[in-house]
């Protein structure tokens, strides 16, 4: 199975990287860009065939390691 985990900063947390990217895009002439947020996308292979179970495992991985829930949220996907 292919797994995708998207980890991103919670709305209230200042995204310094996003801000810097936004500033740079504006400087390059793309003034129509706003609210840039930079997150992580992890992709990997996962043994097993049960998608529901896999989603559960992925959530556990996020809670334990892949996301710091003090500052980050996550979404998981299997295919």
């Amino acid at each position, binding site marked *: 199975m292919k797994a995708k985990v998207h980890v991103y900063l919670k709305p*209230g947390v*200042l995204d310094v990287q996003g801000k*810097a990217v936004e500033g740079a895009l504006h400087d390059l002439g793309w003034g129509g860009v706003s609210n840039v947020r930079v997150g992580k996308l992890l992709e990997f292979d996962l043994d097993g065939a049960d998608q529901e179970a896999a989603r559960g495992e992925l959530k556990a991985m996020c809670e334990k390691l892949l996301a*710091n829930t003090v500052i980050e949220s996550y979404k998981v996907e299997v295919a």
Partner: protein
Amino acid sequence: MTFKAAVLVFPGSNCDRDCKTAVETTVNGKVDMVWHEDTTLPSGLDLIVIPGGFSYGDYLRCGAMASLSPIMQAVKAEAERGMSVLGICNGFQILCEAGMLPGALLRNSALKYVCKPIELKIENRKTRFTNAYGNAQSVWMTQGNGDGNFFADEATLKDIEDNNQVVFRYAENPNGSMNDIAGLINKKGNVLGMMPHPDRAFEDALGSADGGPLFRSLVGALQSA
């Protein structure tokens, strides 16, 4: 009585020897190096130091992988029993990731690693880590990190301030840290995390000896206990 400390070593720790030397030099302490896969700590300890460096390369998030290592279970248990724990730089990040201190450390606001001597205001001189600073208003230590920008949500931040948990504040904020926080302690007062390096400021030859009183404070606290 000899002061006994343990310094944890994770893959990628790089201030482990510095911390050992600092404890030896400042309080003539005896230091054991403890490997991250160990599940127990040496007996009779007075201090556990979580050193700076790039545990697990700082990959994913600084301190995230180290906070899950077997030895951190033992450190948590000891901390609950009141043992002094000092996390410096990456050690501070590990303590936050482990949930032993509130908040998190984000990328520096300038998005760059910054290494420079830095002035710290001592905000709480009654802790077991700061009682030997006397009347000193501020101290100098060097700092070197890419993720030293302290963040906590509003309620947590208020809680930290209300409980007098901020121990060191930057005189000039170098990284966007909330409320200029450079170092903070847990509610119980036995776990301190800080970004600047007392372990690089223990002799005049190194540019500052202001880290010395931090270690001497712990000895003092033991003697008066």
